């Protein structure tokens, strides 16, 4: 930006409503029908001192404009052209882009790619029409904003400004924090960032102050005219009060000022009066940095644990889950690692025969839907790395590059483009050097290459590589030495996969913990490990006390105070049966008893003569009203542990998955309430059926396609709302029209037996238990 403040404009919608636009009508339509009225607003702002106006295109996206008779491109072209004509030379015109008005998955149903496409249509139209820059405003979803920024960066040459709307809590409606916004938008190389809408100027000042510590980019500030009167929705702040409240922004290093809801040309005039003679304060350099998801930032100012469990290498059960698309199994690994104390989650989905880029994007998105930990994209395939970086919400780490030039040249540009940090392995095409000095030399080479691509030093993390001590005993010391050198001489963060050290030894934990402790002392701050191994995490907790990171040992005390309270694991009673264990929902006992049974009986016998009958008994009690839904599910979950034991046994001998038959489940198109369907899935799976869960908001064609592809004899459809039951009927018709031979069961709060029959279903399922009965009837 320049040495002067850029004076922006104020509200557009409010002004147009004052000029006669009915509430609820798209203001953008006036770009074509009443261009003079829109131009008049631009001129009023320019007269008041505005030097950069936002076009009347905030909601000109194809989703919001549906049914208005004009296309996004038409209204944008008209809006930019009329603004350029109205403001004359010397005043810039920004293409104003607001939220699409529909939430992205997982909260809503819009996909990232669709959002990208909607924004692409807008920004290309804006550039063609002559906009000077793209200005994303009033965003509350960082992920949606990422789609927009990428669309603008990849399809236009325009500068990109991005501004989000925050609550006084310091979060957006979707939970994004100021640091996460700063890190993510920096990573995407926007040209300016800041705040608009949300609150009044005074309430936004603390957020501006915080933002300045996380970014060196110019800061934009466009507050509302205070807080609205709830009863009328009107703002009462005066222009003078607004301008006075804006004044502190000059000292905080803001570069562009204007107003949002409730502000008028008077507000801008008063603000311009204050700001036009001032020079923006020179900010001290941002002093905070880290990686983040949308809601959580991890600063690297202490030991940060990277969880290693989302990785199929050497894990039969995980491989099976990846091959079968069993997302829940993978997500459970994410949740348990977060519960175990991980700070960052490594995501590795490399498996021969699998489409790694597609799977990487899918798993990264799924993981971020249940965990707010930042992620580390773990792959050596550039396509998978890029797919992961695109899919990630926040700022990620890439694991990894090494000293090979070809690898550096393939991966580093991606890290630069998406602003990711990168892990460099101290090896090259000659393998892992045996001496610390040679590994250090590779680390230097990697750092140089990264700097050459414009990646800042603090984003380069070095992995000096752990070798198995039982095989190469002298190497443990070399690794530790290399860690110390990289840390002390290069000042870089270091990464180390710790668990590998003890491979092949008995009582591995002792060796792992001892190595970890020494490595931490040598300067390791990003250990990659299994956070569900208590001894390892205990060592990290202890180290944090000794290093002073854990102030007053508070976290340590809390960890072990809590541990003592819960240390009452009851030993399973000797005479407990599988029946009782399942009925009481006791998972560990069910698993143990199943294991025992598997020693004496075949897998299918255990399923058919033990697990299923036990579940049936629980089901009968549920039907008699003796137990309720949570207990039914608990029992089913316990049985699941039994099935897991069976599956593991089969996986170990490489056999076929045990299944009583395939069932397709889907929540119908337009419906997002999927807990009912998920309950049915859990129960059916725990009855031994293979469930292909298509998720929610599933189009009829997708159900038909899956039913045919999987050759499923039973399809279950769920709809919760009266408005989505027609989609259920459409899906049934599509299934019938396809000629695929299958039965359809339907369920959902607003359905009745009668209604189910009327829309052509074969079965009405009152609850999860009944769906299992129907499955047995159809599939046996």
């Amino acid at each position, binding site marked *: 930006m320049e040495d002067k403040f850029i004076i922006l404009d104020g509200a557009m919608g409010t002004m147009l409503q004052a000029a006669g636009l*009915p*509430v*609820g009508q798209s203001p953008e339509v006036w770009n074509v029908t009443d261009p003079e009225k829109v131009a008049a607003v631009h001129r009023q702002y320019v007269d008041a001192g505005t030097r950069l106006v936002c076009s009347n295109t905030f909601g000109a996206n194809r*989703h919001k404009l549906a049914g208005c008779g004009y296309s996004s491109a038409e209204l944008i072209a008209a809006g930019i052209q009329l603004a350029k004509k109205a403001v004359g030379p010397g005043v810039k015109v920004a293409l104003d882009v607001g939220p699409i*008005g*529909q*939430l992205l998955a*997982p*909260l*809503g*149903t819009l996909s990232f790619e669709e959002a990208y496409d909607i924004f692409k249509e807008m920004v290309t139209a804006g550039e063609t029409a002559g906009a000077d820059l793209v200005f994303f405003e*009033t965003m*509350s979803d960082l992920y949606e904003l990422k789609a927009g920024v990428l669309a603008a960066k990849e399809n236009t040459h325009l500068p990109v400004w991005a501004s989000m*709307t925050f*609550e006084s809590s310091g*979060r*957006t*409606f*979707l*939970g994004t924090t100021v640091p996460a916004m700063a890190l993510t938008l920096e990573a995407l190389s926007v040209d300016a960032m800041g705040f608009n*809408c949300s609150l009044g100027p005074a309430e936004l000042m603390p957020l501006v102050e915080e933002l300045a510590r996380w970014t060196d980019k110019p800061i934009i500030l466009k507050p509302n005219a205070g807080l609205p009167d*709830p*009863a*009328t*929705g009107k703002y009462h702040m005066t222009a003078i009060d607004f301008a006075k409240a804006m004044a502190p922004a000059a000292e905080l290093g803001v570069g562009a000022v204007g107003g949002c*809801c409730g502000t008028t040309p008077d507000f801008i005039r008063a603000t311009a009066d204050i700001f036009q003679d001032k020079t923006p304060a020179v900010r001290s350099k941002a002093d905070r940095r880290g990686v983040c998801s949308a809601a959580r930032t991890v600063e690297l100012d202490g030991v940060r644990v990277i969880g290693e469990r989302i990785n199929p290498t050497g894990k039969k059960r995980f491989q099976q889950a990846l091959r079968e698309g069993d997302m829940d199994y993978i*997500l459970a690994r*994410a*949740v*348990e690692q977060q519960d175990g104390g991980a700070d960052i989650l490594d995501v590795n989905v490399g498996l021969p025969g699998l489409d790694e880029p597609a799977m990487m994007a899918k798993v990264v998105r799924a993981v971020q*839907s*249940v*965990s*707010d930990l930042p992620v580390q994209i773990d792959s050596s395939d550039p396509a998978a790395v890029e797919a992961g970086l695109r899919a990630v919400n926040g700022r990620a780490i890439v694991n990894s590059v090494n000293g090979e030039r070809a690898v550096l040249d393939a991966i580093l540009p991606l890290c630069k483009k998406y602003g990711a940090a990168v892990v460099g392995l101290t090896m090259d095409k000659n393998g892992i050097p045996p001496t610390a000095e040679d590994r250090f030399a590779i680390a230097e080479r990697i750092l140089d290459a990264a700097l050459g691509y414009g990646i800042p030093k603090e984003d380069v993390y070095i992995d000096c590589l752990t070798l198995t001590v039982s095989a190469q005993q002298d190497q443990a010391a070399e690794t530790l030495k290399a860690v110390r050198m990289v840390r002390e001489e290069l000042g870089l963060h270091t990464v180390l996969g710790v668990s590998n050290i003890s491979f092949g030894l008995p009582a591995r934990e002792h060796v792992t913990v001892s190595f970890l402790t020494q490595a931490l002392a040598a300067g390791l701050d990003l250990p990659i490990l299994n956070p569900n191994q208590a001894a390892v995490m205990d060592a990290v907790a202890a180290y944090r006390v000794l290093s002073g990171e854990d102030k007053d040992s508070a976290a340590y005390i809390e960890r072990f105070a809590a541990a003592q309270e819960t240390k009452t694991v009851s030993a399973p009673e000797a005479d407990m049966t599988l029946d009782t264990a399942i009925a009481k929902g006791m998972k560990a006992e069910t698993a143990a008893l199943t294991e025992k049974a598997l020693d004496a009986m075949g897998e299918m016998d255990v399923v058919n003569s033990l697990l299923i009958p036990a579940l049936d008994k629980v089901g009968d009690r549920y039907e008699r*009203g003796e*137990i*309720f*839904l*949570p*207990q*039914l*599910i*608990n029992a089913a*979950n316990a049985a699941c542990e039994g099935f897991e034991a069976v599956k593991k046994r089969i996986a170990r001998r490489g056999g076929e998955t045990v299944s009583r038959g395939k069932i397709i489940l889907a929540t119908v198109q*337009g*419906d*997002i309430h999927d*807990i009912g369907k*998920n*309950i049915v899935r*859990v129960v059916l799976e725990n009855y031994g059926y293979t469930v292909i869960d298509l998720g929610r*908001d599933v189009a009829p064609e997708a159900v038909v396609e899956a039913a045919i592809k999987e050759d499923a004899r039973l399809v279950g459809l769920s709809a919760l*709302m*009266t*408005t*989505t039951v027609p989609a259920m009927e459409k899906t049934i018709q599509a299934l019938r029209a396809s000629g695929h031979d299958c039965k359809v069961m339907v369920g959902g*709060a*607003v*359905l*009745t037996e009668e209604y189910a029959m009327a829309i052509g279903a074969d079965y009405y399922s009152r609850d999860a238990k009944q769906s299992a009965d129907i499955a047995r009837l159809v599939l046996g």
Partner: protein
Amino acid sequence: MEPRLTGIDRREALRYLGVRGDKPPADVAASLDKWEAALLKTARPRAVWRLFDLAPDGTLAGTAFRPAGEDIRRHLAGCGRVVLMAATLGAEADGLLRRTQVEDMAQAVILDAAAGAAIENVCDNLCADLAAEMAPAFLTGRFSPGYGDMPLEQQGEMCRVLDTARRIGVGLTPGGLMTPMKSVTALIGVADTPREKGEGGCKNCAQYENCGIRKAGGSCGR
């Protein structure tokens, strides 16, 4: 008038769970306590409301929104004004529910019921505040799209009039459902004279045909 979540009504949550009788199983009761605490910590309740004059043709003055159906017309009979409101537990509650579904579906079911009771609590608190603010005028109960013959589709119009996306972060899917999921829109009549409570009763409810409580001779008391 800050929107607030103060606790959950156990009876209501148990009803959502389909637990019959007065004494819930101890583990279910304990889980409800746990999820109440979690929601109090995690949810970020928000609400927006506006007061409108009711035009003679039933539209809300200054907007193009006209609540449809006989039932809402009856509900607002004798009211000169109407409060349009929307409330939500926020995206975090949806996130907690997603995460819990992965961890433990039985707990997720209980959390879902607790969250349902929680959003009702937020609405109840808001209504109590509104009643105090509007006194000496009287408020009717809440009436939401989907009750009786008021079409659920009008939820979208209500969100647009209240500008919920910008004000409280409540958006709509293409199918017209609200996100985050634990969100409510409602109309409340404002009258100068007290109204009889429970007018219309169960028959106003979209669940009339399905309702297990009604079939068992009870009422949810709404």
